[in-house]
């Protein structure tokens, strides 16, 4: 959207890439002792965030497995509606594209995504609420 912004971004990225490369070179420089490597590794400084994300992903699958099995069968239809609603958290991507995108076409895509996903957010949570409000118990 904004030429100067884009340039600034490019530069920032290149600079940080260079620094990162430097750090990497340092870490793998010959002559560095295994112990140093290990220490660095253990402190987590050198670990790719991907590993952490992957760990989070795997643990979340475990959590999902147990949480969903604990859902009572009587609420399986609301479950489908609410998981649908929460999967629209993909909205964060759409917001980035619309809000700070540097290209018009990307903004366009983002806007479409945002609209679609808003249907889901509002539709999903509201229809779930509507369903859940219907489940009643004796003595009330």
């Amino acid at each position, binding site marked *: 959207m904004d030429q100067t912004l884009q340039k600034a971004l490019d530069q920032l990225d290149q600079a940080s890439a260079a620094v990162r490369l430097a750090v990497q070179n340092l870490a793998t420089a010959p002559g560095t002792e295994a112990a140093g490597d290990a220490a660095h590794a253990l402190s987590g400084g050198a670990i790719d965030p991907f590993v952490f994300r992957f760990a989070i992903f795997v643990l979340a699958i475990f*959590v999902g497995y147990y949480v969903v099995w604990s859902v*009572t069968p009587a609420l399986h239809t609301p*479950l489908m509606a609410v998981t649908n609603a929460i999967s629209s958290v993909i909205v964060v991507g759409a917001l980035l594209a619309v809000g*700070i995108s540097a290209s018009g076409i990307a903004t366009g895509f983002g806007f479409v995504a945002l609209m679609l996903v808003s249907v889901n957010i509002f539709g999903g949570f509201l229809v779930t609420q509507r369903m859940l409000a219907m489940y009643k118990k004796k003595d009330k």
Partner: protein
Amino acid sequence: MNANFASFLYLVSGILFILALRGLSHPTTSRQGNLYGMIGMGIAIATTLALAVPSAGGFGLIVLGLLIGGSVGAVTARRIAMTSMPQLVAAFHSLVGLAAVMVAAAAIYAPESFGIGTVADIHAQALIEMSLGVAIGAITFTGSVIAFLKLDGRMSGKPIMIGGRHFINIALGVALVVLIVLLVTTESKLVFWLIVAASLVLGVLLIIPIGGADMPVVVSMLNSYSGWAAAALGFTLGNLALIITGALVGSSGAILSYIMCKGMNRSFISVILGGFGGETAAATDDGIERTVKQGSADDAAYLMMNAQKVIIVPGYGMAVAQAQHALREMADKLKANGVDVKYAIHPVAGRMPGHMNVLLAEANVLYDEVFELEDINSEFAQADVAYVIGANDVTNPSARDDKSSPIYGMPILDVDKARTCLFVKRSLGSGYAGIDNTLFYKDGTMMLLGDAKKMTEEIVKAMDH
């Protein structure tokens, strides 16, 4: 906003989504759970806006998008009939799938906004994650559209079997892998769109051969897919909320598919390979003359008013006829007369897991009168009347007794153990599985042929005499 703090907030939002699903473990906590979900979504949105403060124009666009989408969603949510939930869920999934494609496209055209590199220099890892996300998203999109059309009756439920479709699917799959490799090496936008196109086609081809009645399993499977797509994009964006939510939704869909397949005693593979359960097959005619005892609304009213215990077994036909309100009225009359009334729900009654429960809840049936198969099955032996309304397969004793039956092994509700079994349906035709129900010809069975709603209303009237 500080990036660490933002990540922390995304984690909070993911945790709130976990709590949202956890709330569904019981009706009393479920509304609270839904609220947690809404708060989680609010936090995710607010965090993103605070982290990447949009320009004034961008902000306007965002508000506009939220308003348009939000009002469409809100109106739909308010208007939709409870019987149409399967369609609605399918339609919503298609939106998530398409949105995933769009977000990925935006990321390809403006990678800087997403912090994944610059145009023509996107990190390879991000490209791989993204292309997985976009492919799964596109498959979810077209697949869900087909499922929606079939469920909504806008497309024939008949399985459409294209010759050599397995071959075509495999070819498309291989093409996708090649294209993804190409995208990582060349970063060409054309390749990106080719991936989208191939996945869209694949989505259609995967779902078209599956019969309309298997659509619920498909919808749940697509739910799972939309989760994995979200998780893949979560890796690209390094967003904890997306990763956690994706995993949750992915598990959820997979587990529900599994529950449905188990409830039907079919393998997931056989569902996915398709070709099962198109139009209702004609009842098999084995040449033996069999007699059916038919009854009237008056007979039914008399039987039930003089019973001590009535168990109501609703099925798909009740949903089609929208008979839940009439049914509640009937139950009220019976209870006013001192009859013990309970509802028995089979795990795959209707066309969606928990479908019957929502409909009964809609008609103000209290959920502590509604029981699951394991909890009530032993009570049929003590019941005077089993009132089977629009259910069929889930009561078919051949699933229990006849090893040659295609549904052999599927757990059923033992309505045949009740003193009298009243069957409300329009004909002697079979249900979704297309299998004749031997129960119709049993001594203790009385058929009440007619529309579920009309018949129940007539019974209510007859009770007043």
